[in-house]
């Protein structure tokens, strides 16, 4: 299990079940093909936060918790997440993730895409175990929406005219839908009523949005060693994020920043110049304010739920998302 899980108390409530999820992931991703076996092992060894299975299990705690029902859902969702990361790395030509070389760096595009597709098949295999059309259709729809979000991100790269609404549309699809789905399915699988499902889904949505905005802030402000990848990636790739949208409104730097962000031929010095300009604006502070709004909204949603340890864990998890540095 990743150090992440050992170090954070919000997973204490579900730590033994999360270990079983991890074991199941190990088992499911053991494959015969020598290359796919190596790529799958390297993905597992890269760890990851396992935040998505965590959300699913915690959500189930408020209802008729059944680990047996939740296990294939948690495993499927984490594998879908892994597959999208592998494909994202090909899309972004990313060479480092979580401080380690990506599959693209080690194996190239073809093997990486094949690994991602293989993982999607593995996720589908888990979904078959769930044997629930409705629940599975939700997963499929989110996968489709995630692709649409990514396609929109590419289409509007280097477009400095983007506004907050467009940004939120994009990150909802890119990140929030999957986290929201993790919470929703955790509740659904444990016989939650409509209100319960809605509460969980909304909590996941708020945290997902906050999670992505924090990701976008960290891409500007983080220590690359702590983050496990270089900073300024979004600037480099022309992805216009919330700190940039706010920074572009700062009249003192707007003109130069526009020039830098709109260029698809930036030098590394220009990337760092753009990062410095964004840092010196109030873009980061304003983005953090938005993060806190979503975190508060997410936590507020939970107030109707019973005061059980899982609720404290979800509140702590929300607070962590708002404060994380990696």
């Amino acid at each position, binding site marked *: 299990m990743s150090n992440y899980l050992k170090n954070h108390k919000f997973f204490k409530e579900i730590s033994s079940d999360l270990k079983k999820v991890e074991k199941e992931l190990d088992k499911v991703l053991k494959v015969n*093909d020598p290359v796919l076996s190596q790529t799958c092992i390297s993905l597992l060894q890269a760890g990851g936060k396992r935040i998505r299975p965590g959300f699913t299990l915690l959500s189930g705690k408020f209802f008729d918790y059944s680990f047996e029902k939740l296990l294939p859902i948690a495993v499927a969702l984490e594998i879908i997440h892994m597959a999208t990361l592998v494909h994202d790395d090909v899309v972004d030509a990313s060479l480092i993730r979580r401080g380690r070389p990506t599959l693209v760096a080690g194996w190239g595009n073809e093997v990486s895409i094949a690994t991602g597709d293989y993982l999607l098949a593995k996720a589908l295999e888990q979904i078959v175990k769930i044997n629930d059309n409705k629940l599975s259709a939700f997963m499929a729809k989110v996968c489709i929406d995630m692709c649409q979000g990514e396609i929109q991100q590419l289409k509007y790269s280097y477009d400095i005219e983007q506004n907050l609404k467009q940004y939120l549309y994009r990150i909802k699809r890119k990140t929030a839908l999957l986290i929201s789905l993790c919470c929703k399915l955790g509740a659904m699988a444990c016989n939650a009523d409509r209100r319960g499902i809605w509460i969980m889904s909304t909590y996941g949505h708020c945290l997902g949005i906050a999670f992505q905005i924090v990701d976008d802030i960290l891409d500007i402000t983080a220590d690359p060693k702590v983050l496990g990848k270089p900073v300024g990636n979004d600037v480099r790739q022309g992805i216009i994020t919330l700190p940039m949208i706010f920074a572009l409104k700062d009249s003192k730097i707007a003109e130069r920043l526009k020039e830098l962000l709109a260029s698809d031929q930036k030098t590394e010095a220009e990337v760092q110049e753009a990062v410095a300009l964004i840092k010196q604006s109030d873009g980061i502070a304003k983005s953090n304010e938005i993060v806190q709004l979503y975190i508060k909204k997410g936590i507020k949603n939970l107030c109707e739920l019973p005061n059980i340890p899982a609720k404290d864990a979800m509140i702590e998890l929300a607070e962590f998302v708002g404060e994380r540095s990696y």
Partner: protein
Amino acid sequence: MAVLNSIQSELRAVETQMSKEFGLKASGMKELIQLKLDNLDQILLPAICLAVARTAGPVNNTVIALSSVLQHIYLAQHIHSMVRDREMTDAERQYPILVGDYIFGQSFLKMCEADLFKYVSHFVTVIKKINEGIVLRWRLKNQKISIKDYKAIIEKEKASLTVLAARLGAEGSDLKSHHFAKFEKLGYNIGMAWAASNEPQFSFLTQEYLPKIMANINDLRESFSVQPLQELYEFIQLERGTNAYLASNIL
């Protein structure tokens, strides 16, 4: 004999389903990727599925939906295979990945919505096999590939799909399970011929598999109305321009 005359309306039904489900909200697919598909790429898999089903009688909606899912999966893989280990522009690399994933998602949704859940494990197996084939081809890149290795590659990459197409046509039409193997053999030989015909270095192998296809059809003649399969065979020949050898000998 008109080309695929027995399954024309069913092929149109599959095409209609496909075009409905392809609509990308973010943008039209054609705008994002330059997809080159020949006639076999476009209809062979649904045609196998539908022709097999047609041998037993009228084609039902389940088979039409299964044909559409199968074609979706093939397209997704085909689009993903446009991304290679060579210098590519960002757009050439990025959009095929996302559009391929989008189509995978659509096929999965279709399975849920059209109540095809009991067939999912077939699709899972085939997606795994295809990608094992892709990786095997990658492992042998820059080496002289033996015929044995080449067959192992195309068995996974393409024949797995055509085997499944035949199986789904039979299973979806509620044929008795003891018939499945014969149809799967037919699907296998079609897939091997199709794959080999696409690669000049190994296209001679097509001649090995075309007679086997006809033998499979003849084998089914006693129990089924094989006209749709004969039309399928003619279609393959027509598209591949390899009919001289067999048309007179076997048909």
